[in-house]
């Protein structure tokens, strides 16, 4: 076979492979949306779940997902920010830094179920926090920290070295330069990273089934006293999230309309992730424009 025919066959095959992959991926997305979107209604998104009957919603789970997400981000953001600042701005290139970087890489490659099991062992059992929002938020924090740290470090890297020199030459300390000059300039890029990581946290389930638990007690949305057991703000109550809900009803299957609810929930998850993606891009671009425009 001469090289020209070979070339044609190879390129044709690659077209085929790429086409097939697009087909698979689009079919996947299509399936989620086509089977899920018809399930969505105000009732579905707000009503509590029903264990043995048809017609339950995912209101509590949806709320729990957001509450856990916000708590986890509130805990993990400052830690990741501090760690990224040290790694990028202060750390010297020596064995300590290399070791720490390796540790962070290991954390990012740990299966989330292992992170969840550690959370179970440490927070649920050892610290006696029980299956609770708080245990779940810590587990999600651990899950989120390495990637968020790396993403913030990448954001810091996008700010030119000359900005740092500019601050130092004015007699500012490195810390003041970072917090007053570098971080404000890096906000658009950091925000994009934070929102993208939020998407990951929002859909995570394996780290949560043994930390935040698999039950969603009914919530009283008029009671905002965090010490009451049915208050949505109570951080010590067990809280099944949307992602855990999908897993749970499919593994137990005692719900007559489990499939419809899973379809609906999957669509909600995917739409939320889509939303996170678009928001990240849009806000990042907009903020950047605002920062640089006259």
């Amino acid at each position: 076979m001469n090289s020209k025919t070979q070339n044609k066959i190879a390129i044709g095959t690659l077209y085929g492979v790429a086409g097939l992959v697009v087909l698979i991926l689009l079919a996947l997305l299509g399936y989620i949306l086509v089977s899920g979107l018809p399930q969505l209604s105000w009732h579905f998104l707000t009503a509590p779940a029903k264990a043995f009957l048809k017609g339950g919603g995912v209101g509590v789970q949806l709320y729990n997902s957001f509450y856990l997400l916000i708590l986890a981000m509130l805990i993990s953001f400052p830690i990741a920010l501090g760690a990224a600042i040290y790694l990028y701005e202060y750390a010297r290139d020596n064995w300590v830094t290399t070791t720490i970087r390796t540790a962070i890489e290991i954390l990012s490659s740990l299966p989330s179920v292992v992170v969840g099991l550690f959370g179970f062992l440490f927070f649920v059992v050892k610290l006696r926090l029980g299956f609770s929002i708080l245990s779940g938020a810590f587990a999600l924090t651990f899950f989120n920290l390495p990637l968020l740290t790396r993403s913030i470090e990448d954001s810091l890297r996008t700010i030119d070295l000359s900005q740092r020199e500019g601050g130092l030459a004015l007699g500012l300390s490195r810390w003041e330069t970072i917090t007053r000059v570098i971080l404000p300039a890096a906000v658009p890029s950091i925000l994009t990273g934070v929102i993208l990581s939020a998407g990951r946290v929002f859909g995570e389930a394996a780290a949560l089934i043994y930390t935040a638990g698999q039950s969603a007690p009914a919530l009283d949305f008029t009671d905002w006293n965090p010490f009451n057991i049915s208050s949505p703000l109570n951080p010590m109550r067990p809280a099944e999230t949307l992602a855990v809900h999908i897993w749970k009803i499919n593994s137990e299957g005692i719900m007559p309309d489990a499939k419809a609810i899973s379809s609906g929930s999957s669509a909600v998850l995917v739409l939320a992730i889509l939303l996170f993606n678009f928001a990240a891009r849009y806000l990042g671009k907009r903020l950047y424009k605002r920062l640089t425009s006259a």
Partner: protein
Amino acid sequence: MFVSNDVSTTGTMQKRHIVQPRDAQHPIVLSTEELHVFYGKKEAIYEGDLQFARNQITALIGPSGSGKSTYLRSLNRMNDRIATVTGRIMYRGVDINQSDIDVYEMRRRVGMVFQRPNPFAKSIYDNIAFALRLRGTTDQHELDEIVETSLKQAALWNQVKDDLNKSALALSGGQAQRLCIARAIAVKPDILLLDEPASALDPVSTSQLEDTLLELKKQYTIIIVTHNMQQAGRISEYTAFFNQGRVLEYDTTSHIFTNPQVQITSDYVSGNFG
């Protein structure tokens, strides 16, 4: 007015011709003694002792890689984390190269402007005001006044006085560099170090910048690195010629340009270098 203390040396070493400024009206405010700079084990500067006269402009010239920028950046210890600097840097009688010197306090007296304009991603006003705020100037009138005088001194006020709240990143290169100068003088330094400040600018902006510097030397001692010999000739009183990490010649600018004592200097200033 100019007292020569010629220390020309010849011999096995390359010929050098160093004449430190001696002028009662313009006493020495900054000098280096036995300064050596190392990048790791590699020595970047191994002979570069100069004295700088107050309220004068001193130009550091030389081919690229000659160590002039490294030398300049050592003066306010911007090289601290990058290189090892040994020897003494005497600022008004105090060695500022000692480890117990507070570099932040020192850099407020020895300011710096860089090769590429580096305005912060803030408004024009905040670019100048924010370092002052961090050091406790909170009075709005005082800040307004400092911003205005700094911008006027940097000859930028007329162009931006109505746009003070606009982003500094929207300024043109020449304007941005003058903003950086305004920012540097707003903290009221004693000495201003400029590292090829005009290399990224067009000829018109360059000439405006030079006028600004001539104006500024009434209040500040200016040390400027430049690769542009005409620029050195136009604005500086003293010129030091660097080559391969050494100062080969230091004298008044007119001497350097009309009667250089070292062959390489002569080649360089006449454009026959290399």
